[in-house]
Structure formats: C-alpha cells, structure tokens
C-alpha cells in the first residue's frame, strides 16, 4: 500500500514537472509571485462585468424616433413593433449578443473546472461576438426593406467594454495555462471547421429537399416524366435520365481516350513529348467550365447543326456528352498515369521475359495490375460529370425531354440553375429536392471512390 502511494505521488510530481517544462517563462514568474491568486480571480470578474454590461442599453435604433435596446432584449426578443410594422432584429446580431452571454457563463464554468484552454477560447469568442453583432446590425436595413423605413443603428459603450473584458479574460486564461496548449486548441478548432461545414451542408440539403419530396410523393417525384411547375406537376424522371445518359456517354467517350493518352504518356512517348502533353493536360483541368461551355456553344453545337442532316438546333445531348468527355479527360489521364506508374517494374520485366510484345505487356499485364487506380479515376470523372453545371447549360438546349442523342435535354444541375431565380413555394422546394437527388448521386459516387481506392491500397 505504502509503495503504491509513493509511486502515485511520484507520478503526480513527474507529471507536474513534465507540464512545467512546457510552460512559458511568464508563468514561472506568475507561479512564484502572489499575482497568481489575482489572476485566478480575474476571469470571474470579467464574466460578471460582461453579464452586467448586457443589461445596459446596447444599441440605439433610429426608426422615426430613437430608442435604445437592452442587450438581453436583443437576445430574447425577435424584433420590435413600430406602429404596424415589425422590425426583425438580424439573426447575426442575436447570435452575436447571445454568444457574449453564453460564452461568459461557459468561461466561468470552464475556469472552475480548470479547463483553462476552453475558458480562454470562450473569452476569445466573446471578443469576436460583438463584431459579428455589429455586422448583423449593419445589415438590419435589408430585413425591413419592404416597409420602406430607414433604420440607423448606433452602438453604445458596452460593446467596447465587452471586447476589452473578453480580451482580459482570454489573456489571463492563456497565461495561466500557457500559449502552447492554446495554440493546439485553436488549430484543432480550425480543423473542425471543415467537418462542421460538411455536416451543415448535408443537413441543409436533406432538410430543404425532404419537404417537397414528401409533399409530391417520392414515386411521383422520381419516376414520372412530367415537369410542369405551372401545373404543379413535378416529375423529374427526364432530368435524372438525361443526367445519367450524359454522364454515361461522357464516360464511354472520355475514358478510353483518357486511358490511351495515359498509356501514351508512360510507355510510348519520349520524355520531352510526354512532359509537354502532361503539362497541357494539366492546363486543361484548370480551364473554367464557362470557357468550355462557350467553346461548345460556338464550335460543337454549330458543328452538330451543320453536319447532321435535318437538324434544326445544335443544342443536344450529343453536344453535352462531347463537352463533358473533354472535361473529364484531365482527371482520367492524371489518375490513370499515376496508377500505371505505381505498377512495379518487375511485372513488365517478367512479361517481356516471357516473350510478349511491349503492347501486349501494357494491355495484358500493366493495365490489369493498375485496374483499381484507373477505376477510381473513372469514378472521379463521373463525379465531375454529374456535378457540372455551367458548361452544360450553354450547350444542352435546356428543354425537359427524355434523353435522345440529338434532342435537347435538361440535366439535374441545369434544372436547378434555370428556375432558381423566379421560383417560389413548392416549385422552389422541388428545386431543393432536385439538389437532394443530385447530392445522393454524388455521395454514392464518393462512397464507390473511397471503397475502391481503399481496396487498391490494401491490395498493395
């Protein structure tokens, strides 16, 4: 028992010493002097002052006459009445001031729990919150543009003091804990932003798309070919089929050309030529989709109109397919080339030693070995083709038709863009539902991609 106690005490000291190695010189000074006890109280004082400040008149709204609004009122009331008009307080303002309240309480709680990092972070957020609120206030006039009233918002002293005390709280928390750990915390929260945005987008797409689907009925929505918003008919089968057909066609044309080009780069061309072609293919990837669309509109569409007999309009599924095939080329070429290069050299050597011709070696040995990588390139290309909007809109003709090679079509993506500006009500909701369908397609493609690329890795 005694032995156990000794070790635990030793461990305790050891840990303390380890931590001590990390803290700044500043903290050593603080530890030695009596200032530490003062520093340990400061955050409480800061939070208390901020909470009191919120009960002051935070902002003055000038709408016909001037009146001040308390901080707490800004958080808990949606807006205020002026005559018959309701002036809604901007959401950003409410979020900002609410953040001050929430995080000043959280700051104390974290400090009591000795989670100094989180406390420091809370106080930093308090510093930012009034700025967010100010941003919201400056946009208040947008929200009451219908009523024709002019709103002027002026700020009072609390805002400066909130920032000041937030800063002091943050500073003390940092000094108690050390800058290093705070930096870790900040980097981690930055990394978390992309996670948050992905989940927000997913949630948003589902939440905004689901109501229309449930109102229209999933069968009516997905499996009927009658897109007539003016008659309240929302069947998107034609768009889904067109999207699938366009992507399929682009893959049929683009993938063989892409794979062959990649083979040319790795095995047929000299170093100089392959460098030139590689660079130009990479340039092809960077060209904006609008430029592709412009090119398609003036060259491909006109060519189809001239070359095909009895064709009155050039805008067609064929034009979409050609443009999409060009657009997925760079992805396919780059990924295929990399996966061919990753095939170990002794595969080729063994095959050549068995007496195959170089061409046979590539097509019978190397390509099958690089199969997984090539497939993931194809899937990336599919993802790009399904999601492409602006290039397609310029060459597709945009009439809702079941896909036929020389007929005009409207894809899922272009369906959203074309009617977004003037739609409302169920029509708009159904556009969001289209984006949900598109999102589901993309997620399936993504999952396939990660499945196949993972399988490729585990095989190696």
């Amino acid at each position: 028992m005694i032995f156990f106690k000794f070790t635990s005490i030793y461990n305790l000291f050891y840990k303390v010493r380890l931590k001590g190695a990390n803290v700044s010189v500043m903290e050593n000074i603080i530890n030695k002097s009596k200032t530490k006890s003062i520093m340990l109280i400061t955050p409480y004082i800061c939070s208390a002052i901020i909470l009191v400040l919120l009960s002051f008149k935070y902002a003055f709204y000038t709408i016909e006459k001037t009146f001040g609004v308390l901080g707490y009122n800004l958080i808990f009331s949606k807006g205020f009445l002026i005559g018959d008009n309701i002036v809604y307080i901007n959401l950003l303002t409410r979020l900002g001031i609410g953040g001050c309240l929430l995080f000043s309480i959280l700051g104390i709680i974290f400090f009591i729990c000795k989670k100094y990092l989180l406390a420091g972070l809370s106080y930093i957020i308090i510093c930012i919150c009034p700025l967010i609120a100010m941003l919201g206030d400056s946009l208040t006039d947008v929200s009451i543009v219908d009523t024709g009233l002019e709103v002027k918002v002026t700020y009072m002293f609390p805002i400066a003091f909130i920032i000041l005390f937030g800063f002091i709280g943050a500073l003390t928390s940092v000094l108690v804990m050390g800058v290093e750990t705070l930096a870790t915390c900040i980097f981690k929260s930055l990394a978390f932003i992309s996670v948050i945005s992905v989940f927000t987008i997913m949630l948003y797409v589902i939440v905004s798309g689901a109501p229309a689907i449930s109102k229209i009925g999933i069968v009516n929505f997905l499996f009927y070919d009658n897109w007539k918003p003016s008659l309240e008919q929302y069947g998107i089968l034609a768009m889904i089929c067109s999207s699938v057909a366009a992507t399929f066609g682009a893959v049929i044309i683009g993938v063989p050309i892409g794979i062959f080009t990649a083979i040319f780069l790795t095995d047929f061309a000299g170093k100089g030529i392959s460098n030139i072609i590689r660079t130009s293919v990479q340039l092809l990837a960077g060209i904006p989709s609008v430029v592709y669309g412009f090119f398609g509109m003036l060259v491909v569409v006109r060519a189809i109109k001239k070359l095909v007999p009895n064709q009155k309009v050039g805008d067609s599924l064929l034009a979409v397919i050609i443009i999409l095939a060009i657009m997925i080329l760079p992805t396919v070429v780059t990924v295929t080339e990399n996966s061919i290069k990753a095939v170990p050299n002794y595969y080729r050597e063994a095959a050549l030693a068995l007496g195959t011709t170089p061409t046979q070696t590539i097509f019978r040995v190397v390509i099958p070995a690089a199969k997984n990588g090539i497939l993931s390139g194809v899937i990336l290309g599919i993802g790009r083709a399904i999601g492409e909007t602006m290039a397609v809109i310029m060459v597709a003709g945009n009439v809702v038709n079941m896909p036929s090679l020389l007929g005009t079509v409207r894809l899922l993506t272009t369906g959203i863009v074309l009617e977004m500006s003037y739609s409302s009500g169920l029509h708009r909701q159904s556009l969001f539902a289209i984006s949900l369908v598109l999102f589901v397609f993309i997620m399936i493609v993504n999952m396939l991609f990660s499945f196949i690329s993972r399988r490729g890795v585990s095989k190696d």
Partner: protein
Amino acid sequence: MKKNESKGIIMNKKRVSIYDIILQFGVYFSAALTVFVLSCLIIYVLYNGLPYISFDFLISKYSENDESQKGILPMLINTLYIVVITLLISLPIGIGSAIYMSQYARQGRFIKLVRMATEVLSGIPSIIFGLFGYTVFCGLFKLGTSIIAGCLTMTICILPLIIRTTEESLNSVPSSYKEGAIALGTTKLKVIFDIILPCALPGVITAIILAIGRIVGESAALLYTSGMSYTMPKGFFKHIFSSGRTLTLHLYQSAKQANTPDAFHIAFATASVLLILILLFNFLAKVFSNVFRRE
C-alpha cells in the same frame, strides 16, 4: 544455324498481331486527339478574342445599353475582391487545419473525420455550394446577393484544396529539421512558425495560386450568391456588401445574350482574358511546385 536463329528472332519481332496494331493506333490517335482538342480550344478562343482586347477594354466601365461602354473593369474589380476576401477567410482556416493535421494530430477518429470531411467537400458539385450559400448566407444571414456571400461560399469550396495541398507540403518537410529544433529546446509553436512553415512555403504558395485559379474560374457557386450586377464600386467597404458579377459570370451572360457579331466579340475577349489569367496561374503554380520539389 546461327543465321536461322537470328532470323527467327527477327521474325518473332515482326510477328505483330492486328490486335497490337489496333491498340497502338488507338494510343497514338487518343494522344493526338487530346492535344488537338486542347490546342483547338485555346487557339480558337485566343484567335477570336485577342484582337478585341485593348487597354480601353480592360479599364472602361460596362453598360448593357450603351454601346460605348463595353469594358470589363467592374468584373475585374469584383473578381479581385472575391479572390482577396476569400483568401483572407480561407487561408487561416485551411493552413491552421493543415498544421493540426500534420503536426499535432495522432492517427485516430478525429483525423479520419477531417479527412472524410475534406474528401466529401471536394466531391460536392459547386451548384450545391451555390444553393447552400444562397439560402444560408444570402437568406438566413440576410447578406443578400453580395460579394461577401459569394466569398463565404467560395471559402467552403476551396477549403479542401488548400488543406490538402498545404498538408502535403508540411508533411514533406524532413522530420530531422523538427527534431533538431526540438532537441535545441524550442517550443512546438516556434518550431512550426520558424522552421516548418518557412520550409514548406513554396508548397503553401502553390496551394494559394491553385486556389486563386479555382476562384477565378468558378461560376456556378457564385451565380446566385454574388449576383450579376455590373456597377462600379461606390465605396471601398460598401462594395463588399453589394452584388457584383465576376469575369466567368460576365462571359456566361454575354455569351447567352449575344446575338450580333459585336456581342460575341465581347464574349470572346472576356474568355481570352479569363483563359490568359488561368493559364498564368497554372503556370505559376507549376513553377513553384517545381522549385519545391528541387529543394
């Protein structure tokens, strides 16, 4: 015997099947086609567009009705605004998360989550970002169709690109640098800011240039967030909250509305400006990544 043998070998080499010939033809044909299409696209646009690019075209205002005002200055300014503000927002986030991913995090659930998030983000089509920005930034936050709403949308768009490229360049800094510095008694933060980031700087710059290229070329995400207005900025900061079309959207609009040869000239000239900018950025990115690789 010897003669026969050598003949046999030669015979064997010449015994190429039709299958082989077809495949070889396919390979050469495809490579030629790829190069042909690319050069066709670039030459077609530049050949038709370059004659109409003049200094006047670059610095004069635009008006839909006035024939004398067909310049692209407002679009250039809007594009610049969007590029700068988007980078200001996304660089700290992107580089910060790349630092966390490469220097702090251990392999675990959180890293997997962030990886998955960036992968999913990079796969989402830009029109969905556009819709998201339109409802959330323009609608919910009451920003309206404005440049700042476009910038926030673009921030989410280019985040995966910045994170991935920066992380790669941070990871490629030899760990001996880091270990040496830590052995000398520096703190981790100092190692990151004084040693790893400067060493990875060309990679980070490549990431920035690629991001600029992506922003300049983006159209679907900006169509409903930053809007189509072509007025000149009324105030330096006020312009951030007003709508403005970028070069890509201008090309889209002018190509869609064009019905006279004159109108197509504007579209061609805009497309050439856009193409030259993009090619320039890609070229710069390549130069910087080459510099990085050599080091």
